[in-house]
């Protein structure tokens, strides 16, 4: 029974991992490739971890707690990393691939401009703070 469950989860995990590997080559730009690595690949990893939970079911409870901790951690961190990577790709002007080679539509251009403007504003804000901090430091030295 346990062996059957482990086999099913292992097969699901390896199929999803291979699909992610193929998708990384089939898809054309970083935004679509993020679908392959973030969603499918991490789901394959989670199902392999679940298979190992059932494989070591006769061990102590601490073992499965560690595995479930890894599952939980992956579940939380992968979306955050995906968000930051796609945002960075937009700021770096990586072009968006369209299936028919058409131009970007109006609302997509607006979204990209909004993200770039936010990034610029943050950079300007940080620079301003830095300059203020340095002036404050110099004043403290003089007095």
């Amino acid at each position, binding site marked *: 029974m346990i062996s059957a469950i482990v086999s099913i989860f292992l097969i699901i995990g390896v199929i999803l991992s291979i699909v992610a590997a193929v998708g990384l080559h089939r898809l054309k730009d970083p935004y679509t*490739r993020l679908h392959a690595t973030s969603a499918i690949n991490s789901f394959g990893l989670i199902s392999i971890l679940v298979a190992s939970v059932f494989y070591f079911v006769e061990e102590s409870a601490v073992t499965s707690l*560690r595995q479930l901790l890894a599952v939980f951690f992956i579940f939380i961190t992968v979306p955050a990393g995906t968000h930051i990577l796609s945002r960075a790709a937009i700021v770096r002007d990586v072009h968006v691939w369209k299936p028919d080679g058409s131009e970007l539509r109006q609302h997509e251009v607006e979204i990209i401009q909004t993200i770039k403007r936010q990034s610029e504003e943050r950079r300007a804000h940080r620079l301003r703070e830095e300059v203020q901090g340095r002036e404050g430091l110099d004043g403290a030295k003089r007095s």
Partner: protein
Amino acid sequence: MELLLDVVIILMTLSTLVVAARILLGPSLPDRVVAADGATTHVIALSVLVGMKLKSTTMFDVAIALSILSFLTAIVVGKYMEKGHIIDDIGNR
């Protein structure tokens, strides 16, 4: 069961190589980072599978450490790509 585990390990290794090829091929930096992220995920899965093969539970610590490292890599390289530096005003003072 053991045979299935061997087959799965071999398939995952080949799949890791396929993903790692994208690190070399990727035209832009985000492509390479995404591929490196996927390769790390594959290596975590492989470490868990090797732990199952060796019947040892120590490999799960490796899995947790590698997942933290992969998250950190995504964050740090993403910040570098967005802002051009990683740590605030290093070399400015």
